[in-house]
């Protein structure tokens, strides 16, 4: 399987660890990735709150670049990029005036044939949990994991068409397949504050604080994520949240690709786990005997 890879801005900066672990996991699972040459930012929230046309044109530019590579599927690990690429593709397909405008702006038509997928979707739906389970070298025995999906990976369901928008299961099934314990909890798709990290930090401290609190109350030892914004809000801001809530959480926030990498036999160093702010080393050494 060969996929066009759209890392997005975060995976080249705050989420380097996600980029590293995703690429390693793909190599192991036989997924070939080719980065879209000269990809540009998807525009994220600032584009869709400023200009509808811009918010569609930027993702479409990347979809055309992927088409030019001759590949039929783009994989975008950042939930925000994934969301914007999916929405742009669908809106252009449904609105002929918008399609004309986008073509005028980009100077090129898009065939609209490129599929957009999130890595979680590729692993759960295309590779399949059975194969992943068979390839696993290390059981996540006894590790209690809260799977946190956030907003943009599952919403809006009419466009995303993956998993359940209120009670998603894919990451939980992955954890279970790898021998871990997926703790049931109610905050799977609550918002972490997303792009407000810099502009409305208090909101992030509040919302992400509630998520950490719920995960801890549910008995989780770590939180599993599939989005660089969620990871950064829960990990980088965790110390600030602890201060505000006067409570110690000490919850490592792992990308699902990192946990999968560990299960596939990789070690913490090659997966780049030292980049985390809340260190997962002690937990993983104790529970999984990895170094």
């Amino acid at each position: 399987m060969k996929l066009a890879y759209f890392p997005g801005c975060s995976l080249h900066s705050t989420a380097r660890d996600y980029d590293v672990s995703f690429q390693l996991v793909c190599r192991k699972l036989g997924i070939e990735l080719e980065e879209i040459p000269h990809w540009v930012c998807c525009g994220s929230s600032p584009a869709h709150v400023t200009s509808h046309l811009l918010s569609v044109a930027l993702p479409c530019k990347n979809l055309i670049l992927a088409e030019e590579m001759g590949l039929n599927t783009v994989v975008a690990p950042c939930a925000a990029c994934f969301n914007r690429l999916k929405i742009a593709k669908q809106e252009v397909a449904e609105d002929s005036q918008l399609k004309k405008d986008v073509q005028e702006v980009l100077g090129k038509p898009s065939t609209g044939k490129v599929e957009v997928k999130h890595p979680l979707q590729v692993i759960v739906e295309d590779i399949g949990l059975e194969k992943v389970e068979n390839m696993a070298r290390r059981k996540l025995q006894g590790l209690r994991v809260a799977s946190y999906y956030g907003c943009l990976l599952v919403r809006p369901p009419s466009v995303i068409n993956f998993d359940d928008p209120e009670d998603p299961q894919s990451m939980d099934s992955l954890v279970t397949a790898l021998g871990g314990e997926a703790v049931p909890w109610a905050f799977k798709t609550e918002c972490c504050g997303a792009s407000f990290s810099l502009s409305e930090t208090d909101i992030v401290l509040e919302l992400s604080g509630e998520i950490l609190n719920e995960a801890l109350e549910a008995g989780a030892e770590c939180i599993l994520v599939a989005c660089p914004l969620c990871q950064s809000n829960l990990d980088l801001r965790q110390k600030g949240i602890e201060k505000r809530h006067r409570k110690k959480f000490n919850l490592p926030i792992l990308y699902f690709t990192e946990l999968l990498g560990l299960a596939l036999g990789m070690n913490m160093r090659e997966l780049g786990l030292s980049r985390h702010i809340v260190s997962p080393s002690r937990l993983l050494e104790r529970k999984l005997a990895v170094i």
Partner: protein
Amino acid sequence: MKHSLASDKFRREFARQIEEICGERISLCYQCGKCSAGCPVAYAMDYLPNQITRFAQLGLTDKAMKSSTIWICASCQTCSVRCPRGIDLAKIMDALRILAKRKGIVPKEQTTPLFDGIFLGSIEKYGRLHEMSLITKLNMASGRPFKDISLLPIMLRKGKIKLKPEKNNRRKEVRDLMRKVERLESRR
């Protein structure tokens, strides 16, 4: 609360503008309040999400566009998923923000519109986001120059932020794209 209602013609025109931008019909809302009940940031808003829809229905454009609500909305789409009338309220919030920006009535105390502008400026310049310059510029523009400075050393040490922007060969194309969008939209 006393408001003078707008004329039918004015109301219809505002509803049309919203629909033109986002394709959503505000007239469908019957004010059940489910959007507000599930909104994770409602606690920080001056008006609840369903009140904003009501203002828009009544043609109280200033009331809707000058509220803090439209800038506090985090675009999480919880409301959109739960609306029994199938309204994508998150898209209506987008439309109101776009209209407010066009009309130049963005409240000065809101930091998010500053963030949006600086973010898009970064894409225009580099083709991709350069987080370091986004943070510094936003801190200066919002009058909090040292905000988050304590996080900088650890972010640099962990390789989570770059001092220099990434060079993208297509950055000129992004600039052209953004200019074309502006031109096309100003013609309408």
